[in-house]
């Protein structure tokens, strides 16, 4: 079990860095095309939106609607009122914790 964990720790770290460094080393000429630039700006929007969704309403491989959704609602309200980033995150945490602990 411990060997599995060490392999996991080292393997994940090596590949994580390789992926990051590869991204930084792609020749710039590949990026000059307007379409590539456009897609590169859209990809983070897609991935971050997917992360919001997956981390709000799923647990492992199932869809779970729970206290986190209340937190996300608070974050949306805070963002709609142009609140700063810490307020958005704290508001979500406090709301979610309140629902989890008291409802």
């Amino acid at each position: 079990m411990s060997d599995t964990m060490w392999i996991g720790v080292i393997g994940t770290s090596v590949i994580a860095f390789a992926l990051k460094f590869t991204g930084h080393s792609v020749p710039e000429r590949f990026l000059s095309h307007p379409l590539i630039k456009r897609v590169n700006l859209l990809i983070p929007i897609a991935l971050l939106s997917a992360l919001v969704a997956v981390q709000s309403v799923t647990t492992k491989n199932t869809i779970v609607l729970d206290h986190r959704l209340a937190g996300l609602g608070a974050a949306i309200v805070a963002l709609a009122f142009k609140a700063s980033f810490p307020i958005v995150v704290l508001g979500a945490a406090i709301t979610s914790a309140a629902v989890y602990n008291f409802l």
Partner: protein
Amino acid sequence: MSRVSSPTFRDSLSVSLTVGAYGVAFGAAAVANGFSVLQSCLLSLLTFSGASQFAVIGVIGSGGSALSGIATASLLGTRNGLYGVLMAPILKVRGFKRVVAAHITIDESTGVSLSQESRGLQAMREGFWLTGFGVFIFWNLFTLAGALGAKAMGDPSAWGLDAAVPAAFLGLVWPRLKSSTDKTLAILAAAFAIATTPFLPAGLPIIGTALIAVIVGLRSAK
């Protein structure tokens, strides 16, 4: 690093603190999943990508093989490669600096940097370095704290930490949703990720949305 413009510094610091604090949850989760304090801290130091770290401890901790843990974590880590592609022409660094830049290329450093666009190239660079180093410092300190205090902390849900992470991601994507195409893509991506979660291995519902971004980009370019 040259003089730091204060709005950029404020953005970077607030992101670093709030996101870094979630390292408590990672440290606690890693130890709860049977990883040692040393292994937990090494993941935060060397992998330094929250989603990938949670993936590998989750998969191996629930009995998965090392290979499936690494594969899931790496699928989640590919987006950092995409961020690198975005950041390289902004940072324009070589050699050792590029190695350091690559290591701190994550959601938050890229997100803050891109959000500084209206303040100019220098602010974008400062946003990247400040947020990258800031998150790195706080993430690792809080990982250690979480790993050591795992038993005392108890349930991360009781502290609202499980809702803080999606809220942080939402806070990062929100300012990017300018055109109706951006908003449509965000909704499509979220819907795809939720709909495919019961069927696809962990990580794919997120990575798969990169393909949607490509399709939307191709269609809207006409």
